[in-house]
């Protein structure tokens, strides 16, 4: 142990390959090194208290001695005597045994094999002999087998009816009760004699304090009554159910993974199976095609030989078909458009596709619901012209009190001047003459330099957007006055340019928000 500190005592790696030597092959083995490197002794597995027992230690050291010096001293641990044999074995075991040539398969239980479980003892024997002697000459004698049968019937029925008899011995069934159970033919025969056996049985049972005449193991019976844990005679308790092991999350996860893997493997397998089936069919079709071709060329030859010049109608028809087959049986094509997908779905994947269709349908229905109250213009063949970029920079302000829509844009001019460009959008259904400050009025104001209202009106519906090239005199009094009313304080604050593109929507101003 002095050198023990120099090397860590560590276990041998179980996987480490070890070379096997004979001692004579390595004479240079240094035992002291081995001692230094010794591995901690494993436990013997014998109870600690018994490990030190004299005979065991003697036997162990004897075997160690034989391992080191070769002394063959077989030392046995002394045990009590077991060498005596009985002389009258044949009295008990006389049934000859012939072993079947095949391995024995046997499932009957001991209860099935031992006949009547009641075995008469010396007291019974004495009583029975006495009983038979006392019987009159003409009366039937009771043999041992029937005696046991009767006794067992009493015992069995009593135990079934009053299992806790030993706690209250007043409940012993009367013979009248027991007699009723003698229903089996063998028992019916001894029913009358049983009446004379009953008092004897009763006496024995009472003497036993109500317990079985044949002592029983302190096992399952009366388990509920006797809960004395340390009674050494109490044995073979029923084991409570084992604690259910909690399935850990990791277990569940790995199960999930394995399940998924299995599913994938399965689908891959079925795919491959289908591919192979298809290829087989294709091969078949090629063979058939080949055959048809052969036949046809034969037909052609005959015709040529016989000089028949019919229309080759049937031939052409065939050709068409062939081409069709050729088309479909080309390489695997991944369907690209709806048409293909539909055709595919009708074949094998119908269910899945139907799902897809229904989801599309529901999506459409949802949209239709959303669009209630709106006019759907997407079906309209009319398309707006693309809005020029400069036009896109306009922002629309919320609807004004007078029902006008105003758009504006900010623009950086020369020398850092900031321009504010405005636009007016006109509500679609506003009646111009109704309002005093109608839209037309203001327009007339604004575009006063035009020839007249008519000129303006003429262009009114031709143009989608107001032309930027319109010449507007900003500094006209009316314009300035008007401008002052345009923006509130908050509007001004929110004035800023952004890269977002705003579409001016003349057609349906409601969407502009």
């Amino acid at each position, binding site marked *: 142990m002095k050198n023990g500190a120099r090397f860590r005592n560590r276990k041998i790696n179980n996987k480490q390959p070890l070379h096997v030597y004979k001692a004579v092959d390595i004479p240079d*083995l240094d035992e002291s090194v081995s001692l230094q490197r010794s591995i901690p002794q494993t436990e013997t597995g014998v109870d600690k208290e018994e490990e030190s027992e004299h005979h065991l230690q003697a036997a162990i050291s004897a075997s160690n001695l034989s391992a080191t010096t070769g002394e063959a001293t077989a030392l046995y641990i002394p045990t009590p005597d077991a060498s005596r044999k009985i002389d009258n074995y044949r009295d008990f075991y006389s049934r000859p045994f012939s072993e079947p040539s095949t*391995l024995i398969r046997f499932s009957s239980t001991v*209860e099935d094999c031992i006949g009547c479980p009641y075995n008469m003892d010396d007291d019974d024997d004495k009583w029975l002999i006495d009983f038979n002697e006392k019987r009159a000459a003409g009366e039937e004698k009771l043999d041992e087998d029937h005696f046991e049968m009767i006794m067992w019937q009493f015992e069995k029925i009593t135990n079934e009816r009053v299992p806790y008899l030993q706690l209250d011995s007043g409940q012993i069934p009367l013979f009248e009760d027991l007699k009723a159970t003698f229903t089996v033919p063998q028992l019916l025969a001894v029913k009358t004699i049983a009446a004379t056996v009953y008092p004897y049985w009763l006496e024995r049972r009472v003497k036993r304090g109500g317990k079985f005449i044949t002592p029983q193991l302190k096992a399952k019976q009366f388990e509920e009554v006797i809960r004395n844990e340390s009674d050494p005679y109490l044995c073979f308790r029923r084991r409570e159910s084992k604690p259910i092991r909690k399935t850990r999350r990791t277990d569940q996860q790995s199960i999930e993974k394995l399940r998924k893997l299995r599913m994938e493997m399965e689908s891959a397998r079925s795919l491959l199976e289908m591919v192979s089936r298809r290829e087989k069919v294709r091969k078949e079709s090629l063979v058939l095609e080949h055959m048809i071709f052969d036949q046809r060329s034969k037909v052609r030859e005959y015709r040529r030989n016989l000089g028949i010049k019919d229309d080759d109608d049937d031939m052409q028809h065939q050709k068409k078909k062939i081409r069709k087959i050729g088309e479909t049986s080309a390489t695997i094509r991944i369907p690209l458009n709806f048409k293909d997908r539909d055709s595919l779905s009708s074949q094998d994947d119908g269910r899945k596709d139907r799902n897809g269709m229904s989801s599309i349908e529901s999506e459409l229905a949802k949209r239709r619901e959303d669009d209630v109250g709106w006019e759907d213009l997407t079906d309209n063949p009319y398309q707006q012209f693309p809005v020029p970029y400069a036009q896109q920079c306009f922002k629309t302000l919320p609807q004004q009190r007078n029902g006008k829509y105003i758009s504006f844009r900010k623009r950086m001019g020369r020398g850092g001047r900031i321009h504010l460009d405005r636009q007016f959008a006109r509500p679609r259904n506003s009646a111009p003459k109704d309002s005093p400050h109608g839209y037309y009025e203001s327009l007339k104001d604004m575009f006063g330099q035009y020839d007249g209202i008519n000129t303006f009106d003429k262009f009114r519906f031709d143009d989608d957007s107001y032309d930027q090239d319109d010449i507007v005199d900003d500094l006209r009094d009316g314009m300035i006055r008007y401008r002052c009313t345009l923006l509130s304080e908050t509007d001004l604050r929110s004035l800023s340019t952004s890269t977002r593109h705003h579409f001016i929507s003349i057609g349906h101003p409601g969407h502009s928000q």
Partner: protein
Amino acid sequence: MSAASSPFPSTIVVGGTIGSIVVGCKLQVLHGQPPEYRKAEILSIRPSPSADDATRCEYYVHYSDYNKRLDEWVAPERLNLLGEIEYPKIKKPKTVLAGIGKETGKGSEPGTPSGRMSKNNRKSNLSKAATTGKGTEAASSSLAVPGTPGANNKRKASVMEEEGEASQEKAEDTPSTQTLADEDEDEDMNGSVALDAAGDEEGGGIFSKEQEIEKLRTSGSMTQNPHEVARVKNLNMIQIGKHEVETWYFSPYPVEYAYLPVLYICEFCLSYFPAVKQLGRHRHKCTLQHPPGNEIYRKDDISFFEIDGRKQKVYCRNLCLLSKLFLDHKTLYYDVDPFLFYVMTMRDDDGAHLIGYFSKEKESSEQYNVACILTLPQYQRLGFGRLLIAFSYELSKVEKRLGSPEKPLSDLGLLSYRAFWSESIVTLLVEQQKAGIETSIDDIAQKTAFQQIDVLHTLQNLNALKYYHGQYVIVLSDTVIKNAERSAKKKKREVDPKALVWKPIHFTATQLRFL
């Protein structure tokens, strides 16, 4: 077990009278052939069955440092009353109880020193004893059971044992008081459990009852029953088949059969009978001539039968009761359901005779391949134990698992296993050495189905693990090789793997649930 380990110093007196000998005394007892004195402890005292003199007693002694199987009833002449007598330390002289076990009582029914006593109970009994004080004294003097057997704590300082002792010395005047006491116990079950825990702390106890039972419930089958009554074997001799076998340890055969001179056992169904007449009647009816199971191996006259504890409850219980007579650490606390039994038989014209068996858990949480293993004493030292062990490993090989016997092993078990392990491993290593193959502990384990720890254990016992040129190597000494050669030459029964027709049974969770 020695006085040195006892927390309470004992009183040593030189010389004494037979009347002063009480349970717990340690003195020299004549033992063995040729007879010599050996220190022994008195575990129990009973009136001598053959003597005319009512005061003459027999003494059940345990020889120190000998296995319990050598414990025996001795006549007073064998006690050395002139030498040193070590008396148990009287911790509580108050607990003077009427020292009448049933066996010392009426003698009509052999003893049922059953039941346990909590401390409360002891008090109640104390008062009982006090009220019947006169009779108690008379009894104790006449039966030479002095009134100081109280709670000595020589052995493990556990409340269990203390209670056990107390219960052994409990008064059992009449059957009626017996039942009364039982009822008392039922009532204070809860209280006594709490006492157990407390007692552990104060006594520095080695285990608690709950732990013990929990261990029994969750794991295997072998744990010592520490009960005091169980320290005294309750049967002397069994007659099984043509053999008369002295028993070794306590076994919970029905208490009515305790202390019978001979218990008769049918060698095929293992039913037990107190009298020859009953055995005869039983044999008249019993049709069994081999163990009630499926034969899974047959080679020459040796067969193995596989028996499911759940299906063959009676047989397996009988088998367990029988084997408990020879296995100290076996417990029959729980039923046989969770085990499979592999019964080895030898065939002749009368039938397939039971030689030995091993039991195996249907589902072992600790990779045990054997729970209990026994060769009946009349067949011991004939190589059958080795055959059983070899067979258990053959099963493990089929299962493709490594196995090990459940612990603790008995002394005989350890020797048998060691012999088998080293023989198998040396045979394997000699082959490897000749072929010049390196081998790891894992390799050996895989080839033999021994667990790695057992392989290592064996290599250490063979003194074969050496450190050479900077690495561990296995070195077979000449004697080891010679021993192996010698034993290989011996004609022995071997297990033939080809004769095994067996598939491991897999039990579903539901089948294993209510075990």
